[in-house]
Protein backbone atom coordinates (compact mmCIF):
# COMPACT_ATOMS: atom_id res chain seq x y z
CA UNK A 1 0.00 0.00 0.00
CA UNK A 2 1.67 3.19 -1.13
CA UNK A 3 -0.70 5.68 0.54
CA UNK A 4 -0.16 8.06 -2.36
CA UNK A 5 -3.17 9.98 -1.04
CA UNK A 6 -1.66 10.55 2.41
CA UNK A 7 -0.22 13.99 1.70
CA UNK A 8 -0.05 15.74 5.08
CA UNK A 9 3.40 17.16 5.79
CA UNK A 10 4.92 16.54 2.38
CA UNK A 11 6.89 19.39 0.79
CA UNK A 12 4.93 21.21 -1.91
CA UNK A 13 4.80 24.52 -3.74
CA UNK A 14 2.40 27.47 -3.56
CA UNK A 15 -1.35 26.85 -3.25
CA UNK A 16 -2.94 27.58 -6.66
CA UNK A 17 -5.87 29.88 -7.54
CA UNK A 18 -6.79 30.94 -4.02
CA UNK A 19 -9.63 33.30 -4.97
CA UNK A 20 -11.23 31.03 -7.53
CA UNK A 21 -15.03 31.10 -7.22
CA UNK A 22 -15.93 28.97 -10.24
CA UNK A 23 -17.75 25.81 -9.09
CA UNK A 24 -17.00 23.68 -12.17
CA UNK A 25 -14.18 24.68 -14.51
CA UNK A 26 -15.17 22.24 -17.24
CA UNK A 27 -18.45 20.61 -18.06
CA UNK A 28 -16.77 17.22 -17.63
CA UNK A 29 -15.86 18.11 -14.03
CA UNK A 30 -19.54 18.66 -13.31
CA UNK A 31 -20.40 15.47 -15.15
CA UNK A 32 -17.80 13.47 -13.21
CA UNK A 33 -19.24 14.64 -9.90
CA UNK A 34 -22.85 14.05 -10.94
CA UNK A 35 -22.09 10.57 -12.31
CA UNK A 36 -20.50 9.65 -8.98
CA UNK A 37 -23.45 10.96 -6.97
CA UNK A 38 -26.07 9.36 -9.19
CA UNK A 39 -24.23 6.02 -9.28
CA UNK A 40 -23.64 6.13 -5.54
CA UNK A 41 -27.39 6.46 -5.04
CA UNK A 42 -27.80 2.94 -6.45
CA UNK A 43 -26.54 1.67 -3.09
CA UNK A 44 -23.96 -0.79 -4.45
CA UNK A 45 -21.18 0.80 -2.38
CA UNK A 46 -20.64 3.25 0.47
CA UNK A 47 -18.65 6.48 0.84
CA UNK A 48 -15.67 4.68 2.36
CA UNK A 49 -15.52 2.26 -0.57
CA UNK A 50 -15.56 5.17 -3.03
CA UNK A 51 -12.66 6.87 -1.19
CA UNK A 52 -10.77 3.55 -1.08
CA UNK A 53 -11.32 3.04 -4.81
CA UNK A 54 -9.68 6.41 -5.52
CA UNK A 55 -6.78 5.83 -3.10
CA UNK A 56 -5.93 2.53 -4.75
CA UNK A 57 -5.57 3.99 -8.25
CA UNK A 58 -2.13 3.19 -9.61
CA UNK A 59 -1.99 6.62 -11.21
CA UNK A 60 -3.26 8.48 -8.14
CA UNK A 61 -0.40 10.97 -8.15
CA UNK A 62 -0.73 11.94 -11.80
CA UNK A 63 -4.50 11.93 -12.34
CA UNK A 64 -6.28 15.25 -11.79
CA UNK A 65 -8.99 15.47 -9.13
CA UNK A 66 -12.02 14.61 -11.25
CA UNK A 67 -10.03 12.10 -13.29
CA UNK A 68 -9.58 10.23 -10.01
CA UNK A 69 -13.32 10.38 -9.43
CA UNK A 70 -14.06 8.92 -12.86
CA UNK A 71 -11.40 6.20 -12.62
CA UNK A 72 -12.51 5.19 -9.13
CA UNK A 73 -16.13 5.09 -10.29
CA UNK A 74 -15.36 2.91 -13.31
CA UNK A 75 -13.40 0.46 -11.15
CA UNK A 76 -16.19 0.27 -8.57
CA UNK A 77 -18.88 -0.26 -11.22
CA UNK A 78 -17.00 -3.33 -12.43
CA UNK A 79 -16.01 -4.56 -8.95
CA UNK A 80 -19.63 -4.39 -7.79
CA UNK A 81 -20.98 -6.05 -10.92
CA UNK A 82 -23.04 -3.15 -12.24
CA UNK A 83 -21.07 -2.86 -15.48
CA UNK A 84 -18.86 -5.44 -17.18
CA UNK A 85 -15.43 -4.80 -18.64
CA UNK A 86 -16.85 -5.61 -22.07
CA UNK A 87 -19.44 -2.85 -21.60
CA UNK A 88 -16.77 -0.35 -20.50
CA UNK A 89 -14.90 -0.91 -23.73
CA UNK A 90 -17.76 -1.37 -26.18
CA UNK A 91 -21.41 -0.90 -26.97
CA UNK A 92 -23.98 -1.40 -24.31
CA UNK A 93 -27.43 -2.86 -24.92
CA UNK A 94 -30.18 -0.44 -23.96
CA UNK A 95 -32.11 -1.24 -20.77
CA UNK A 96 -35.05 0.27 -18.90
CA UNK A 97 -34.17 2.71 -16.13
CA UNK A 98 -33.87 0.71 -12.90
CA UNK A 99 -36.32 1.60 -10.10
CA UNK A 100 -33.25 2.14 -7.88
CA UNK A 101 -31.99 5.01 -10.05
CA UNK A 102 -32.01 8.51 -8.58
CA UNK A 103 -34.73 10.55 -10.38
CA UNK A 104 -34.35 14.24 -11.15
CA UNK A 105 -37.36 15.06 -9.00
CA UNK A 106 -35.72 13.40 -5.99
CA UNK A 107 -32.26 14.97 -6.30
CA UNK A 108 -32.79 17.91 -3.97
CA UNK A 109 -34.37 15.77 -1.26
CA UNK A 110 -31.63 13.16 -1.58
CA UNK A 111 -28.85 15.73 -1.22
CA UNK A 112 -30.60 17.36 1.79
CA UNK A 113 -31.42 14.07 3.52
CA UNK A 114 -29.90 13.55 6.98
CA UNK A 115 -27.98 10.26 6.80
CA UNK A 116 -25.86 10.19 9.95
CA UNK A 117 -22.78 7.99 10.36
CA UNK A 118 -23.40 7.61 14.10
CA UNK A 119 -24.56 4.19 15.33
CA UNK A 120 -25.95 2.97 18.64
CA UNK A 121 -24.07 -0.34 18.64
CA UNK A 122 -20.37 -0.96 19.09
CA UNK A 123 -17.89 -0.81 21.97
CA UNK A 124 -18.03 1.60 24.91
CA UNK A 125 -15.85 4.68 24.74
CA UNK A 126 -12.53 3.89 26.39
CA UNK A 127 -11.32 7.50 26.54
CA UNK A 128 -12.65 10.70 28.08
CA UNK A 129 -12.09 14.30 27.07
CA UNK A 130 -8.69 15.39 28.35
CA UNK A 131 -7.17 11.90 28.16
CA UNK A 132 -3.74 11.52 26.59
CA UNK A 133 -3.62 8.87 23.87
CA UNK A 134 -0.98 7.48 21.53
CA UNK A 135 -1.80 6.71 17.90
CA UNK A 136 -0.82 3.44 16.21
CA UNK A 137 2.80 3.35 15.08
CA UNK A 138 1.71 3.27 11.42
CA UNK A 139 -1.56 3.38 9.45
CA UNK A 140 -3.08 -0.09 9.04
CA UNK A 141 -2.98 -1.69 5.58
CA UNK A 142 -6.04 -1.09 3.41
CA UNK A 143 -8.29 1.92 3.97
CA UNK A 144 -7.13 3.52 7.23
CA UNK A 145 -7.89 7.13 8.10
CA UNK A 146 -4.91 7.64 10.38
CA UNK A 147 -2.57 9.91 8.40
CA UNK A 148 1.08 8.87 8.45
CA UNK A 149 2.19 12.24 9.80
CA UNK A 150 0.29 11.62 13.05
CA UNK A 151 1.22 7.95 13.51
CA UNK A 152 2.96 7.01 16.76
CA UNK A 153 2.25 10.43 18.31
CA UNK A 154 0.74 11.47 21.64
CA UNK A 155 -2.28 13.76 21.62
CA UNK A 156 -5.19 14.81 23.80
CA UNK A 157 -8.84 13.86 23.33
CA UNK A 158 -10.79 17.14 22.94
CA UNK A 159 -14.12 15.92 21.53
CA UNK A 160 -16.00 12.65 21.76
CA UNK A 161 -18.47 11.92 18.95
CA UNK A 162 -20.06 8.62 19.96
CA UNK A 163 -19.81 5.54 17.76
CA UNK A 164 -19.31 6.13 14.03
CA UNK A 165 -19.14 3.74 11.08
CA UNK A 166 -15.55 2.41 10.89
CA UNK A 167 -14.12 3.10 7.43
CA UNK A 168 -11.45 0.38 7.60
CA UNK A 169 -14.05 -2.39 7.42
CA UNK A 170 -16.83 -0.49 5.65
CA UNK A 171 -14.57 0.35 2.69
CA UNK A 172 -14.00 -3.38 2.11
CA UNK A 173 -17.69 -4.32 2.51
CA UNK A 174 -16.83 -6.10 5.77
CA UNK A 175 -19.47 -4.30 7.79
CA UNK A 176 -19.98 -0.93 9.46
CA UNK A 177 -18.33 -2.15 12.68
CA UNK A 178 -19.08 1.12 14.55
CA UNK A 179 -16.31 2.39 16.83
CA UNK A 180 -16.00 5.35 19.21
CA UNK A 181 -14.75 8.42 17.35
CA UNK A 182 -12.76 11.22 18.98
CA UNK A 183 -11.16 14.47 17.95
CA UNK A 184 -7.55 14.27 19.10
CA UNK A 185 -5.40 17.37 19.29
CA UNK A 186 -1.63 17.31 18.80
CA UNK A 187 0.79 20.17 19.33
CA UNK A 188 2.84 21.23 16.33
CA UNK A 189 5.94 20.41 18.38
CA UNK A 190 4.73 16.82 18.87
CA UNK A 191 4.18 16.32 15.14
CA UNK A 192 7.01 18.29 13.61
CA UNK A 193 9.63 18.70 16.33
CA UNK A 194 12.11 21.46 15.61
CA UNK A 195 10.53 22.04 12.18
CA UNK A 196 7.30 23.34 13.77
CA UNK A 197 6.53 26.95 12.83
CA UNK A 198 5.22 27.56 16.35
CA UNK A 199 5.47 24.70 18.86
CA UNK A 200 2.17 25.63 20.54
CA UNK A 201 0.03 25.61 17.40
CA UNK A 202 -2.37 22.69 17.29
CA UNK A 203 -3.44 20.14 14.70
CA UNK A 204 -6.55 18.01 15.29
CA UNK A 205 -7.66 14.76 13.69
CA UNK A 206 -10.85 12.72 13.97
CA UNK A 207 -9.68 9.25 15.00
CA UNK A 208 -11.48 6.01 15.83
CA UNK A 209 -10.73 4.10 19.00
CA UNK A 210 -8.88 1.23 17.23
CA UNK A 211 -6.28 3.81 16.09
CA UNK A 212 -5.57 4.82 19.69
CA UNK A 213 -3.80 3.35 22.69
CA UNK A 214 -3.98 4.57 26.28
CA UNK A 215 -0.86 6.22 27.56
Amino acid at each position, binding site marked *: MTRAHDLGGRPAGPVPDKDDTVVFHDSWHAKALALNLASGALGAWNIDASRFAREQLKDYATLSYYEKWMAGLANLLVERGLVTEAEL*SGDVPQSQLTPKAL*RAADVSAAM*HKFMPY*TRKNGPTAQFQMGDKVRTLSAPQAGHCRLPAYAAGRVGTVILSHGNHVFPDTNARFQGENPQPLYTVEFTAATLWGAAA*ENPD*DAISLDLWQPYLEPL
Partner: protein
Amino acid sequence: MPHDHHEPHSLLPSDPELRARALETILVQKGLVDPAALSALIDTYQNDIGPQNGARVVARAWANPAFKARLLSDATAAIAELGFAGRQGEHMVVVENTAAVHNMVVCTLCSCYPWPVLGIPPAWYKSDEYRSRAVKEPRAVLAEFGVALLGSQKVRVWDSSAEVRYLVLPMQPEGSHELDEGALANLVSRNAMIGTALAGAE
Protein backbone atom coordinates in the same frame (compact mmCIF):
# COMPACT_ATOMS: atom_id res chain seq x y z
CA MET B 1 -5.51 -12.53 -14.39
CA PRO B 2 -2.34 -12.78 -12.29
CA HIS B 3 -0.14 -11.23 -14.96
CA ASP B 4 -2.62 -8.65 -16.16
CA HIS B 5 -3.28 -6.13 -13.42
CA HIS B 6 -5.00 -3.60 -15.58
CA GLU B 7 -7.59 -1.48 -13.84
CA PRO B 8 -11.06 -1.56 -15.44
CA HIS B 9 -11.06 2.22 -15.94
CA SER B 10 -8.19 1.86 -18.42
CA LEU B 11 -10.74 0.43 -20.87
CA LEU B 12 -12.38 3.86 -21.13
CA PRO B 13 -11.02 6.67 -23.33
CA SER B 14 -8.19 8.45 -21.52
CA ASP B 15 -9.16 11.95 -22.60
CA PRO B 16 -11.25 13.14 -19.64
CA GLU B 17 -13.97 14.80 -21.67
CA LEU B 18 -14.45 11.70 -23.81
CA ARG B 19 -14.22 9.54 -20.71
CA ALA B 20 -17.02 11.47 -18.97
CA ARG B 21 -19.18 11.14 -22.07
CA ALA B 22 -18.45 7.41 -22.37
CA LEU B 23 -19.28 6.76 -18.72
CA GLU B 24 -22.50 8.72 -19.04
CA THR B 25 -23.51 6.81 -22.16
CA ILE B 26 -22.83 3.43 -20.54
CA LEU B 27 -24.69 4.25 -17.32
CA VAL B 28 -27.67 5.76 -19.10
CA GLN B 29 -27.89 2.94 -21.67
CA LYS B 30 -27.75 0.38 -18.88
CA GLY B 31 -30.63 2.13 -17.11
CA LEU B 32 -28.52 2.88 -14.03
CA VAL B 33 -28.53 6.66 -14.30
CA ASP B 34 -31.31 9.07 -15.26
CA PRO B 35 -29.75 11.82 -17.43
CA ALA B 36 -32.20 14.34 -16.01
CA ALA B 37 -30.89 13.53 -12.53
CA LEU B 38 -27.37 14.43 -13.67
CA SER B 39 -28.55 17.87 -14.76
CA ALA B 40 -30.45 18.31 -11.50
CA LEU B 41 -27.37 17.36 -9.46
CA ILE B 42 -25.17 19.81 -11.34
CA ASP B 43 -27.77 22.55 -10.97
CA THR B 44 -28.08 21.88 -7.23
CA TYR B 45 -24.37 22.40 -6.57
CA GLN B 46 -24.00 25.14 -9.14
CA ASN B 47 -26.86 27.26 -7.84
CA ASP B 48 -28.52 26.10 -4.60
CA ILE B 49 -25.85 24.72 -2.29
CA GLY B 50 -22.82 26.95 -1.89
CA PRO B 51 -20.96 29.35 0.43
CA GLN B 52 -23.90 31.76 0.42
CA ASN B 53 -25.48 29.27 2.85
CA GLY B 54 -22.55 29.32 5.25
CA ALA B 55 -22.42 33.12 5.09
CA ARG B 56 -26.01 33.24 6.36
CA VAL B 57 -25.08 30.96 9.26
CA VAL B 58 -22.15 33.20 10.20
CA ALA B 59 -24.22 36.38 9.86
CA ARG B 60 -26.91 34.99 12.13
CA ALA B 61 -24.32 33.96 14.72
CA TRP B 62 -22.90 37.49 14.73
CA ALA B 63 -26.35 39.08 14.99
CA ASN B 64 -27.93 36.67 17.44
CA PRO B 65 -25.99 35.56 20.55
CA ALA B 66 -28.49 32.83 21.41
CA PHE B 67 -28.09 31.32 17.94
CA LYS B 68 -24.32 31.57 18.25
CA ALA B 69 -24.43 29.67 21.53
CA ARG B 70 -26.50 26.91 19.90
CA LEU B 71 -24.18 26.87 16.89
CA LEU B 72 -21.12 26.33 19.06
CA SER B 73 -22.75 23.62 21.17
CA ASP B 74 -24.68 21.68 18.48
CA ALA B 75 -23.74 22.98 15.06
CA THR B 76 -25.67 20.40 13.01
CA ALA B 77 -28.97 21.30 14.69
CA ALA B 78 -28.34 25.07 14.65
CA ILE B 79 -27.43 25.03 10.95
CA ALA B 80 -30.53 22.98 10.20
CA GLU B 81 -32.62 25.84 11.66
CA LEU B 82 -31.74 27.73 8.47
CA GLY B 83 -32.66 24.73 6.32
CA PHE B 84 -29.08 23.65 5.55
CA ALA B 85 -28.46 19.95 6.10
CA GLY B 86 -27.64 16.76 4.32
CA ARG B 87 -24.88 15.13 2.40
CA GLN B 88 -21.38 15.85 3.75
CA GLY B 89 -22.79 17.95 6.57
CA GLU B 90 -24.19 15.23 8.80
CA HIS B 91 -21.91 15.95 11.76
CA MET B 92 -21.02 19.64 11.87
CA VAL B 93 -18.65 21.32 14.30
CA VAL B 94 -18.23 25.11 14.26
CA VAL B 95 -14.91 26.50 15.50
CA GLU B 96 -14.73 30.14 16.53
CA ASN B 97 -11.90 32.51 15.71
CA THR B 98 -10.96 34.82 18.58
CA ALA B 99 -8.09 37.11 19.49
CA ALA B 100 -6.45 34.00 20.95
CA VAL B 101 -7.11 31.39 18.22
CA HIS B 102 -7.23 31.29 14.43
CA ASN B 103 -8.78 28.11 13.00
CA MET B 104 -8.30 26.61 9.56
CA VAL B 105 -9.68 23.45 7.97
CA VAL B 106 -8.10 20.89 5.64
CA CYS B 107 -8.55 17.29 4.53
CA THR B 108 -5.09 15.82 3.99
CA LEU B 109 -6.38 12.37 2.94
CA CYS B 110 -8.97 13.42 0.34
CA SER B 111 -11.29 16.43 0.04
CA CYS B 112 -13.76 16.31 2.96
CA TYR B 113 -15.64 19.61 3.14
CA PRO B 114 -19.00 20.77 4.59
CA TRP B 115 -21.13 20.70 1.43
CA PRO B 116 -24.48 21.94 2.82
CA VAL B 117 -22.92 25.22 3.97
CA LEU B 118 -20.01 25.68 1.52
CA GLY B 119 -20.93 23.63 -1.55
CA ILE B 120 -18.32 21.84 -3.63
CA PRO B 121 -14.76 22.56 -2.49
CA PRO B 122 -12.66 24.88 -4.65
CA ALA B 123 -9.74 23.42 -6.60
CA TRP B 124 -7.15 24.94 -4.24
CA TYR B 125 -8.70 23.15 -1.24
CA LYS B 126 -8.38 19.85 -3.12
CA SER B 127 -4.87 20.62 -4.39
CA ASP B 128 -1.86 18.54 -3.36
CA GLU B 129 -0.20 21.76 -2.24
CA TYR B 130 -2.84 22.75 0.31
CA ARG B 131 -3.37 19.19 1.53
CA SER B 132 0.38 18.73 2.00
CA ARG B 133 1.26 22.02 3.65
CA ALA B 134 -1.73 23.10 5.76
CA VAL B 135 -0.86 20.80 8.67
CA LYS B 136 2.91 21.41 8.73
CA GLU B 137 3.24 25.07 7.79
CA PRO B 138 -0.19 26.63 8.35
CA ARG B 139 1.33 30.04 9.08
CA ALA B 140 3.20 30.09 5.78
CA VAL B 141 0.02 29.03 3.97
CA LEU B 142 -2.01 31.72 5.74
CA ALA B 143 0.59 34.34 4.81
CA GLU B 144 0.34 33.17 1.21
CA PHE B 145 -3.43 33.75 1.40
CA GLY B 146 -2.77 37.22 2.77
CA VAL B 147 -4.04 36.47 6.27
CA ALA B 148 -2.26 38.58 8.90
CA LEU B 149 -2.49 36.86 12.28
CA LEU B 150 -2.55 38.75 15.56
CA GLY B 151 0.53 38.22 17.70
CA SER B 152 -1.76 36.75 20.36
CA GLN B 153 -3.26 34.11 18.04
CA LYS B 154 -2.40 30.45 18.15
CA VAL B 155 -3.24 28.49 15.00
CA ARG B 156 -5.49 25.44 15.20
CA VAL B 157 -5.72 23.23 12.10
CA TRP B 158 -8.63 20.79 11.81
CA ASP B 159 -7.76 17.86 9.51
CA SER B 160 -11.12 16.29 8.59
CA SER B 161 -10.27 12.59 8.71
CA ALA B 162 -13.79 11.25 9.51
CA GLU B 163 -17.38 12.34 8.74
CA VAL B 164 -17.17 15.33 11.09
CA ARG B 165 -17.21 18.54 9.06
CA TYR B 166 -15.79 21.84 10.28
CA LEU B 167 -16.94 25.41 9.62
CA VAL B 168 -14.90 28.37 10.85
CA LEU B 169 -16.83 31.19 12.54
CA PRO B 170 -14.70 34.20 11.62
CA MET B 171 -14.27 37.24 13.87
CA GLN B 172 -16.82 39.92 13.14
CA PRO B 173 -15.19 42.93 11.45
CA GLU B 174 -14.89 46.14 13.45
CA GLY B 175 -17.65 48.62 12.75
CA SER B 176 -20.14 46.04 11.41
CA HIS B 177 -22.25 45.68 14.54
CA GLU B 178 -25.07 47.90 13.29
CA LEU B 179 -25.57 45.90 10.09
CA ASP B 180 -28.48 43.51 9.56
CA GLU B 181 -27.98 39.83 8.76
CA GLY B 182 -28.21 40.34 5.01
CA ALA B 183 -25.46 42.96 5.02
CA LEU B 184 -23.35 40.92 7.44
CA ALA B 185 -23.53 37.89 5.15
CA ASN B 186 -21.93 39.96 2.39
CA LEU B 187 -18.83 40.31 4.57
CA VAL B 188 -18.30 36.54 4.77
CA SER B 189 -16.29 34.92 1.99
CA ARG B 190 -15.98 31.19 1.40
CA ASN B 191 -12.30 31.32 2.35
CA ALA B 192 -13.14 33.06 5.64
CA MET B 193 -15.25 30.02 6.58
CA ILE B 194 -12.35 27.65 5.76
CA GLY B 195 -9.98 29.87 7.73
CA THR B 196 -7.83 31.08 4.83
CA ALA B 197 -9.26 34.61 4.88
CA LEU B 198 -10.65 37.06 7.42
CA ALA B 199 -14.24 38.26 7.26
CA GLY B 200 -14.65 41.60 5.58
CA ALA B 201 -11.43 41.16 3.63
CA GLU B 202 -11.32 40.69 -0.12
